[in-house]
């Protein structure tokens, strides 16, 4: 009985495999029958030769009426959801700006939740790379996600443009974390760390600092850049401590830091840990007067409320978009209209630019057949993005270099939180700009 069942199952499996194998070429190559064309229109010019894909890493073919498929890989749930919601809203606005259509095809946006950790990035990368209809990806939010997802997405021939990955390794050609097809509109942390350190040393006039990271590639490298530049400027780094994601009791680590009596603590970590450190720090004897400074990971509308009154006066280094730019005002109006409220974090403009860059590049390289079929050569798409220069986006004029860095690092600022943000106002006003 069991053997029979097994035999039946294997027959079914084989049959489904065979069917699937037959299915793919049929949809991929809807070449018109040459005889038909000859009999139907004998007097017209001969039909153009069917598109032949000569691209090194293949083409995406979109049949008439089928959507052009792009995906997002963002952290849209949990503690870091404001970061993902912020980017996702901007992507939706960029698509809506085009009426949801590209080259006469509807734009389909599918998404994966990346959870701001390597596991989430891995899962999202696996799912996205398995879907050959996806042309490009907007994501990820956290550098840890990109590190796990990018090898898969790069292997699948897709491009990925990140609105908020800032880890320097991702675009360092000598580092194994850099992969072809990866771009970002976010600043590289080599800029952010330097600006934060210069702000602390020159503007605030502090001479001793301590840093805390959470072991994520983003936080670890950012605090390292910060500490290195601060030492270069002539300051002292009293401690470079670390916590684990998921820790709640920050008292012990802060007490250890207090032993070095730093004037400023820089902790570029995510929610909820950034709020836990903030609310605890002022209670530690020896740190009552220490200046607190976070980074773009804490730049989220839920953070000041979670940290409470301890966040008043705290600084955050992060992405800065010129609020007087009329295009940005227009974007915010669209946000209020389509999504409601204000963007909850700081990388919406970067995500908007990323989406527009991707859609423009698709438009630029796509080959459209007479019947409306669109062919998108993947390597050409990458080349178009690597060659992008002077793209006027919300975050400035973007020019991508050969490593995938498209932002210049000019769009950075330092923000200061006040009681208004703790009571729910967002975003905070910019305090200083390099």
């Amino acid at each position: 009985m069991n053997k029979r069942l097994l035999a039946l199952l294997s027959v079914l499996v084989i049959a489904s495999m065979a069917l699937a194998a037959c299915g793919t070429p049929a949809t991929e190559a809807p070449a018109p029958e040459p005889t038909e064309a000859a009999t139907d229109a004998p007097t017209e010019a001969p039909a153009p030769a069917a598109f032949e894909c000569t691209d090194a890493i293949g083409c995406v073919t979109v049949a008439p009426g089928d959507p052009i498929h792009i995906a997002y890989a963002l952290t849209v749930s949990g503690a870091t959801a404001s970061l993902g919601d912020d980017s996702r809203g901007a992507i939706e606005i960029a698509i809506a700006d085009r009426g949801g259509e590209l080259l006469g095809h509807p734009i389909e946006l599918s998404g994966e939740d990346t959870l701001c950790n390597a596991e989430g990035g891995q899962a999202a990368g696996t799912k996205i790379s398995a879907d050959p209809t996806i042309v490009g990806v907007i994501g990820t939010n956290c550098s840890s996600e990109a590190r796990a997802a990018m090898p898969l997405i790069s292997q699948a021939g897709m491009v990925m443009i990140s609105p908020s990955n800032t880890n320097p390794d991702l675009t360092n050609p000598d580092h194994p974390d850099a992969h072809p097809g990866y771009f970002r509109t976010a600043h590289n942390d080599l800029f952010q760390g330097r600006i934060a350190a210069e702000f602390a040393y020159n503007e605030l006039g502090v001479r001793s600092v301590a840093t805390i990271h959470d072991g994520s590639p983003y936080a670890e490298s950012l605090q390292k850049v910060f500490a290195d530049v601060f030492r270069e400027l002539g300051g002292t780094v009293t401690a470079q401590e670390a916590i684990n994601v998921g820790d709640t009791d920050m008292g012990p680590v802060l007490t250890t830091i207090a032993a070095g009596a730093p004037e400023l603590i820089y902790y570029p970590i995510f929610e909820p840990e950034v709020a836990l450190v903030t609310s605890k720090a002022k209670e530690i004897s020896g740190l009552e007067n220490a200046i607190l400074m976070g980074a773009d990971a804490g730049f989220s509308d839920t953070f000041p409320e979670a940290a409470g009154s301890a966040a008043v006066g705290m600084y955050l280094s992060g992405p800065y978009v010129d609020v007087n730019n009329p295009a940005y005002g227009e974007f915010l109006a669209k946000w209020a209209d389509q999504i409601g409220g204000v963007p909850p974090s700081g990388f919406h403009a970067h995500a908007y630019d990323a989406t527009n860059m991707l859609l423009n590049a698709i438009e630029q390289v796509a080959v459209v057949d007479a019947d409306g079929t669109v062919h998108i050569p993947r390597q050409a798409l990458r080349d178009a993005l690597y060659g992008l220069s002077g793209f006027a986006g919300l975050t400035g004029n973007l020019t991508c270099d050969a490593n995938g860095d498209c932002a210049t690092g000019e769009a950075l600022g330092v923000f200061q939180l006040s009681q208004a943000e703790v009571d729910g106002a967002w975003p905070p006003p910019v305090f200083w700009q390099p």
Partner: protein
Amino acid sequence: MQSLKRFSWTDVFMWVVGAALLTLIVVGSYLTLQQGKYTTVQWFDLAVFGLAQGSVYALIALGYTLVYGILRMINFAHSEIFMSGAYIGFFVATSMQRSGFLRENPVLGIVFIFLTAMTTSAILAILLERIAYRPLRGAPRLVPLITAIGASFFLQYTFRGLFGTQNRAYPEIDFIRGAIPLFGSFQIQKIQLIVIIAAALMMAALAFFVQYTKTGKAMRAVSEDKSVAALMGIDVDKIIVRTFVIGASLAGAAGVLYCFMFRIVTFYMGFIPGLKAFTAAVLGGIGNPPGAMLGGLFLGIFESLGPTLFLDGLGIPAPYQLKDVIAFTMLVMILIFRPTGILGERLSKTKA
């Protein structure tokens, strides 16, 4: 001669590992203290942080250990009982904060938060026992264990579905903020004092309850032998429900104290404290309430003092990342050299 025969190389290896770790701890502590980087005040602060955190672990651990003592099962859904108490406490606290009640009558408000949280946790535990565990009373021991894990997921994702995935900020209660100066430059945060005292009171009350009340005696009897206890006229089901209620109330209270300290509520918040409390229960000797208290405090203090004391002097950078390594290494070492835990009972044949 007899002892020589029982001698095995595994034992030798374990003793060597144990001795190496002990040396590491002693040398590390000596070097750290030699450096004189930390003042007495800072050591005191670290100990207080550990004590406060440990008190919360201990309160949760009691729930694991009480249920284990009676049913010989690990109630893995206990961490979600803790989370539910914290969540309900959060809703009560937020609404009272908004209406201003908490500012005018802080003591009454805080008592009310505790009562609602403990009641909710207790009700949830009663339901859990009735629906998920009682039907499986006679089943093999692994069955209720798996059910408990399932119940844990069920509760976690019910809360996720009801209240979302985001972290919620607990209101700041002014009454419990600020520091109390002791002597010299020593001081203690009000909230830590409250946590330590509240936990100590509850544990003392529990010890009294188990030792001197009728229900407590019945609990001990059921724990010794269910069928004999039933023959003596004890309603075993009722006692089991009461045990669940006591454990859950303590977990609910722990949830409130945890929120007072860390001001954060999420559906996932029970997992790590639950795991640590379970560790504490095993560390102290599972099934033994004083052991759970001791294990919790031990674990809290080790986590707080350990990284600085043991590792700083050895020049290990960012030692606090290794906090959990220290905690779990300690668990493994204690289980190797004292398999029943610090205060572990000798398991009799009928119990095992």
